[in-house]
């Protein structure tokens, strides 16, 4: 990928606050027109990274490029990226029109040009007619839209969004997610979204960058990151996963022979490098099927276990099954004719899954 075309490029950015390291050598690239999400738990450093890109924090080490240009030493007000903050922070002493016009007035554009662009921006976020309203008169969702319009009106290289939906209630959040996606397609600029909500990340992003303890864990399309998590952290943070210890018995032709819960399983490595004699593997709970009897198929991994706990959750049922000294979680959707109702606590069952569902993790 040609670096000159990327909207944002971050190289080896490190940020420390005293003894605490908020970011450790993070490198990342956001393509033009891409929707990239920084996903991580609170305190993982994702907001710090956003602030470094906006210019509100200086990195202790590393460089930041916007549109191919090194802006590490450029103050925030001369960077062509704009931020939508978590609490929107509209200017309380300015009405909606003046809030949106703020950045344009800074550029000393003509009055008519400002009026035209503010009107267009408000229409984009569906707030036409709100010009004379004050921020304190608006609902959370409306304030959010004003914050979006205020940033988008400046036609930035990229839009930075710091947990923009966190303060909204569930219903509104879903609505705004769709709205964000629509906006991003419509304006075609890069969006860099910070969130701790994995569902939001999966639904909105072209790519997800998972970040934890100030380090980039994995970056890829939602499907890649979910289906082939690289680390135990990614596997369990993005969705649920059973992380099991396995013994590496043999390696050949990109496959590995693993000793897993007393069984020997051949697993594709998918180009992943593993070292030593032990490894962790991840299996998603919904990729495991529960059966009363083992199936006559050799292409499946089949383990025998005992049901310890059954949780009915409406759309699905969660099972906790003891296999040897391990516990495995299984999720089955409650479809009509599902066998799930038949199983009882303490019952002996067989867990079945395909070899491809096993993901070997690197540490």
């Amino acid at each position, binding site marked *: 990928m040609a670096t000159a075309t990327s909207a944002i490029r971050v190289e080896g950015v490190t940020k420390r606050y005293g003894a605490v390291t908020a970011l450790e050598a993070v490198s990342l690239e956001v393509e033009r027109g891409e929707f990239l999400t920084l996903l991580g738990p609170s305190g993982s450093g994702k907001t710090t990274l956003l602030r470094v890109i*906006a*210019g*509100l924090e200086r990195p202790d080490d590393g460089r930041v490029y916007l549109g191919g240009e090194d802006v590490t030493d450029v*103050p*925030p*007000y*001369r960077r062509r990226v*704009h*931020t939508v*903050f978590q*609490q929107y*922070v*509209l*200017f*309380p*002493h300015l009405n909606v029109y003046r809030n949106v016009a*703020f*950045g344009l007035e*800074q*550029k000393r554009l003509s009055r008519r040009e400002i009026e035209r662009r503010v009107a267009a921006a408000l229409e984009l976020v569906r707030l036409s007619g709100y010009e004379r309203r*004050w921020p*304190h008169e608006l609902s959370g969702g409306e304030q959010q839209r004003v914050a979006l319009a*205020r*940033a988008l009106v*400046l036609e930035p290289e990229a839009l930075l969004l710091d947990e923009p939906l966190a303060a909204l209630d569930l219903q509104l959040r879903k609505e705004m997610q769709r709205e964000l996606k629509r906006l991003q397609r419509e304006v075609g600029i890069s969006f860099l979204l910070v969130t701790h909500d994995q569902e939001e990340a999966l639904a909105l992003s072209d790519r997800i960058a998972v970040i934890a303890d100030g380090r980039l864990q994995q970056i890829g399309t939602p499907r890649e990151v979910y289906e082939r998590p690289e680390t135990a952290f990614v596997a369990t943070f993005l969705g649920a996963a059973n992380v099991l210890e396995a013994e590496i018995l043999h390696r050949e032709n990109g496959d590995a022979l693993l000793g897993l819960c007393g069984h020997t399983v051949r697993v594709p490595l998918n180009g992943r490098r593993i070292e030593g004699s032990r490894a962790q593997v991840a299996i998603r709970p919904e990729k495991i099927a529960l059966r009363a009897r083992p199936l006559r198929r050799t292409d499946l991994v089949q383990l025998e276990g005992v049901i310890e706990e059954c949780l009915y959750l409406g759309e699905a049922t969660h099972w906790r099954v003891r296999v040897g000294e391990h516990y495995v979680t299984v999720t089955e959707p409650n479809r009509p004719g599902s066998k799930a109702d038949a199983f009882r606590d303490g019952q002996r069952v067989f867990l079945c899954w395909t070899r491809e569902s096993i993901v070997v993790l690197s540490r």
Partner: protein
Amino acid sequence: MRETNANRWLLLAPSALWLLLFFLLPLGLIVVMSFAERGLYGGVRWTFGLWNYRQAMAPLYLWVYGRSFALAAVTTALCLVVSYPVAYYIALRADPKWKNLLLVLSILPFWTSFLLRTYAWMFLLRVEGFVNTTLLALGVIERPISWLLYSDFAVVIGQVYGELPFMILPLYVALERVDVRVMEAAMDLGANRRQVFWRIVLPLTRPGIITGIVLVFIPSLGAFITPDLLGGAKSAMIGTVIQNQFVQRNQPMGSALSVLLVVVVLALLWIASRTARSRRGR
């Protein structure tokens, strides 16, 4: 818990009584007296008319009012210019753990007697005072500066010094409330530090500025101790003139001048509250 009506009145009673006895009653007396006549040998003759007010409109008094106005305005402006950076630094720049200490330090001098501090200024500013002797010793000047004390300059210095905390505190309160994230948002949208100040911080602290102006301007307008001690005979202010009227036993005239001052102050307060309300934020 709901308060009964009787309870509420009981709570209000002491302060209401206090205001009535020591504020409203004397004020009423002054208003009544301002329409009375000076007795032949001092004292008050209770015949009523507008003569005191007619006399108060004489050019001499108007000139004194004007001077007081101008000096109070200069005092207020200087207070604002000096206080704003101090309050800004304490509220937004200083390490939070030092904030309270810095605030206390900035008003520490005001824990000693006002009179004492005014005498200290006289000691500093007089012809053979600290400022003159230092400048002489350093060779900056050849002869002592005579206008340091007993001048408008001295009055303004003394007033600014005396009123400073009444400007710093409301400004500090207003600046403290400014959300740093709002400033960051402005910077993110292309405003440099100066523009953030003029377009965000200053408008958001307007209520504090107006409060500070009111708190400094009004006492400055009627001040009489500082002008009396530091201004000398030439520097007449309305406060000293009113005081003189009372000392010289022309109480009706002093009352009329006082009432006029109160009217002017009320008018200014009304304007201030209008401007504070005219633009609504939160």
